[in-house]
């Protein structure tokens, strides 16, 4: 072993940390690194600055000069006196129509508003796991409350509906623990029994003179309609989606095949064709005197549509679970429904929430398509009665479309930020 140089070295003192050299800090460095690191980057920076300038310089004066208080476009133009500015007065004047459609009784606007506020409360414990679980009680009651608030009419209807569900839950609680199939079928029978008896008990003209005036569903419109379709269809599609996903995972070829066909079929056609089915075809498939109204038909089709997408998301969640979880459940003697309900689904659903939220955002945006089949949602209101059917506001495209875009942006961006937050949180969660 021949090491020529003696290598022994011991540091005599420890060197304290010193600040980095001046050209490594401060605004200048930030600018140099982030905006002007080389000539391509500098060029891009300048181009984008110019672009931003152009956009802002046209957009800002338009907004700032905006007129908010006139009652028609001509009046607005007079006020503007040739200046470049927006006629936001269409928004103030048609505010209620944009939000609630033109048919909802104007003295009842508080009802959907209240339902909306309640929705925020009801949905909170679902979205944020940290909130007290007791709030879920309100979530359970919410659909019935909201139904009554929005449609009004006799309070018996939501009560009967609620009782039916409660009976189902009770029967399932009593028998489902021992025998899932028995509990499940029993629950359905109980629910229908209560509903049928309840419907018979409600007198014919109960909607007349009810505490809350009855509003038929074709009178719903505006942004409220988008919200309602979005919320209703997404919530209805989750159980259906779960069933489809389980069916697709099942090892019974027939059931699997039917689920696959359904899912692939729905995902293969545009939503608008399904809406055509709802508007021009579906009534042929109901019994001659059923007369299911368009809102319900649209809800059916949209639910089926989003169920297929939800099913695919949940299938991903199911596949992400290790096989060991299924085996452990089996080896403990849990049967299939128990294993699903207690072990598999709670985990799979949690993984799937961000995906489901994405489907929800997509579906919410797609609710605007109902304007094509003559429902007056926000887009339908603008395209139909406001732009096309009124002499006062013919030609205020930018303000109206800008408003619609903004409204959707705020909601969808909010939801997608939530889903990103959730994804981060699920990634760090240790249980």
């Amino acid at each position: 072993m021949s090491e020529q140089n003696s290598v022994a070295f011991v540091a005599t003192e420890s060197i304290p940390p010193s600040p980095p050299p001046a050209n490594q800090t401060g605004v200048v460095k930030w600018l140099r690194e982030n905006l002007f690191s080389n000539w391509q980057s500098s060029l891009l920076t300048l181009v984008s600055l110019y672009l931003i300038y152009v956009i802002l310089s046209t957009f800002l004066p338009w907004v700032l000069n905006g007129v908010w208080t006139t009652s028609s476009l001509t009046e607005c133009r007079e006020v503007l006196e040739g200046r470049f500015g927006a006629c936001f007065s269409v928004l103030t004047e048609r505010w209620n129509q944009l939000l609630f459609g033109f048919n909802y009784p104007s003295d009842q606007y508080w009802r959907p508003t209240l339902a909306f506020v309640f929705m925020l409360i009801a949905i909170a414990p679902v979205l944020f796991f940290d909130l007290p679980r007791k709030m879920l009680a309100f979530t359970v009651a919410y659909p019935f409350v909201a139904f009554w608030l929005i449609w009004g009419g006799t309070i018996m209807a939501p009560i009967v509906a609620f009782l039916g569900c409660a009976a189902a839950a009770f029967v399932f609680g009593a028998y489902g623990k021992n025998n899932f199939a028995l509990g499940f079928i029993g629950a359905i029978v109980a629910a229908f029994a209560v509903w049928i008896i309840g419907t018979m008990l409600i007198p014919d003209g109960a909607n007349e003179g009810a505490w809350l005036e009855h509003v038929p569903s074709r009178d719903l419109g505006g942004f409220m309609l988008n919200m309602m379709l979005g919320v209703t269809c997404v919530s209805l599609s989750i159980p259906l989606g779960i069933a489809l996903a389980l069916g697709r995972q099942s090892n019974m070829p027939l059931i699997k095949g039917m689920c696959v066909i359904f899912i692939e079929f729905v995902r293969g056609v545009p939503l608008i064709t399904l809406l055509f089915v709802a508007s021009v075809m579906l009534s042929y498939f109901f019994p001659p005197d059923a007369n299911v109204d368009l809102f319900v038909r649209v809800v059916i089709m949209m639910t089926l549509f989003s169920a297929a997408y939800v099913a695919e998301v949940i299938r991903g969640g199911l596949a992400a679970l290790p096989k060991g979880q299924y085996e452990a459940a089996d080896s403990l003697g849990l049967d299939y429904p128990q294993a699903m309900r207690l072990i598999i689904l709670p985990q799979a659903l949690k993984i799937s929430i961000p995906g489901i939220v994405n489907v929800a955002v997509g579906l919410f945006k797609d609710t605007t398509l109902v304007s094509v089949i003559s429902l007056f949602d926000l887009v339908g209101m603008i395209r139909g009665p406001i732009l096309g059917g009124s002499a006062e506001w013919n030609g205020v495209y930018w303000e109206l479309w800008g408003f619609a875009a903004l409204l959707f942006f705020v909601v969808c961006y909010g939801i997608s930020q939530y889903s990103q937050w959730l994804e981060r949180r699920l990634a760090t969660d240790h249980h």
Partner: protein
Amino acid sequence: AGTLDDVKARDKLQCGVNTGLVGFASPDANGEWQGFDVAVCRAIAAAVLGDSSKVEFISTTGKTRFTALASGEIDVLARNTTWTFSRDVDLKFEFTGVNYYDGQGFMVPKDLGVSSAKELDGATVCIQTGTTTELNLADFFRANNISYEPVPIETDSEAQQQYLAGACDTYTTDASGLAATRATFDDPGAHVVLPEIVSKEPLGPLVRHGDAEWGDIVRWTLNALIAAEELGVTSANVAELSSGTGNPEINRLLGTEGTLGEMLGLDAEWAKRAIMVSGNYGEIFAKNIGVDTPVGLARGLNAQWTEGGLLYAPPFR
């Protein structure tokens, strides 16, 4: 069961209308449906149910209207729908008469300098789709051996926007619709409707085939409105006239004589109620689309036969 029984049981008439065409059917700022077609629906409701507000208006597009009617979602379709052979025969509907004799026309900006549709060779044409417009247009240009570029647009609002921005040279739909649209323009005077009417567009309410009883009610309600104008019965004097007049036809119409109402399965005063709602045909016309309204349509073909028009209600006897 017959449609009449359904309507009575429901205590509400379901009436299919346009999604928004000023003057014919459009919701106003308060959300109340207004217009010429709407008035017909209200008259029917008044005749059948005794209350003109017992109507549910169901807006339909060109695509959905026939299904809505065929599947029973609506009882009567009072939307600018042209009476054609195939609709009547092949699609199994029954047109109950004509409430407006229309024809497809063209609107052009005045400064385009066009005075006849035959000068439109090579023009870009905005069409509001959803009725027979595309077919008439194709036929007209083919017959005159000139070419055009169609731009089919779903809603009136988009078609207007295209037309006003100059993306189309001309806008075509039923002349009544053109007038209604022009009425909403900033400067209606800058646009003209060309004299050519390229098609016959008898518009009228229709019902399902095979329910003759209901068809009769709709048909004769419409006829009652027309006859009332001919007979000089107006919303102002109908109450007074219904106590009995010297004119037996008026008496039969208003139910003071004969049992016409009973034959229809209604009561005697059905026509009186229908007329009370918003007056006779002439009054309805004047109020919604007449020359004094923004739509500004002259009676033209839609005048009574006695005035040189085509309106001719069969006798009430």
